[in-house]
């Protein structure tokens, strides 16, 4: 049963603290030159932030399997869109129809 039991406020404050910390880190990291890693770090932090928001603020951690399925499904389909499209762009340099 989704969101039946009520989460302690403490939990919310902890998550909030983490989010703030991450925000601070990501801004700091942006000014250090890590090469490609800058992008990786920024996105990794963003993904982490998103995850804890979904799990705790949006109560998914305590929700039905169906809710989990919906959440993961949306991520999976986003993956399809991006991966299959890039599968075209990233392999163009090898052989493109009309190329060579």
């Amino acid at each position, binding site marked *: 049963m989704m969101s039946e039991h009520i989460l302690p406020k403490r939990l919310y404050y902890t998550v909030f603290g983490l989010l703030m910390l991450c925000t601070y880190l990501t801004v700091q990291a942006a000014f250090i030159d890590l090469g490609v890693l800058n992008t990786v770090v920024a996105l990794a932090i963003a993904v982490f932030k998103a995850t804890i928001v979904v799990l705790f603020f949006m109560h998914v951690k305590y929700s039905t399997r169906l809710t989990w399925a919906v959440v993961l499904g949306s991520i999976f389909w986003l993956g399809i869109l991006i991966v299959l499209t890039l599968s075209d762009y990233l392999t163009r340099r090898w*052989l493109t129809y009309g*190329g*060579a």
Partner: protein
Amino acid sequence: MGTTPLFPVSASTMAPRVDALYFFLIGVTVFFSLLIAGLIVYYAVKYHRRSTDAVGERIHGSLWLEVTWSVVPFLITMVIFVWGASVYFAIASPPAETLNIYVVGKQWMWKFQHLDGQREINELHVPVGRNVKLITTSEDVIHDLFVPAFRVKADVIPGRYVNIWFNATKPGRYHLFCAEYCGTRHSGMIGEVVVMEETEYQDWLSGGGQEGSLAAAGEKLFADLACNTCHRPDSAGRGPVLTGLFGQTVTTQAGEMVVVDEAYVRESILNPSAKVTAGYQPIMPTFQGLVSEEGLLELIEYVKSLQAQPQAQPLSDAR
């Protein structure tokens, strides 16, 4: 002509290969369509409901049947896939030695430029039995060059060079269509491909060509646009020496290796700062809007012709 053909003439080395797969597919289609239709009619008659309250037998299914009619079609499709893919590869990869012809599509006409100068519109003359490569681009929207008799087709995309290659096997006149919808006169953007015997073709070549070769036109443009102020044969210019450049790999300031092909030269002219060659300042101005698509093709052909050894025969690709 008053006759009504039901099958297209096959006039290229690729046509028979495509047709063969086509016939195989027709076989599969006829077989399964007749199978399904036959069964439907047979059952409909045999088991026709006789009394109003009759009910069918309670049959729920059969695993092995399900497996069979999943696996068999799957295997058939895999045959089709491999076959189709292999022929597609052949269509998509032009042979090394080709006779190159430049094509510019615009709403709503086809412009062809032959290496030694002839220009034609909506009509394309090619020799029989030679590998011909059309290097196409578009001035405005996406077009698509389609020659049914050759079974080849490719979208002609603005800002890109798309190659279409074929080897004509039969002299004659064949339809040339624009197959990608491109606006009002899309259906008027048609022409003819004229396939000629080698000898006739040579006569035809020598017929026109007053303007001099494409490379020559490019050389003239190269001077008019003052490219030569920076790009000189000797390394005294502020720009890199272009001689022998085409086909080489150059390193950009970003450190990536890029092959100098048509697309690269085009970009270097229209958008020089995109890939700045290592060891040079990004001082080359953009020529966006100053050079027409034809002009670009001439410049490209000129850059191609600047081979270290001048006796590189003009009729063959730099690679």
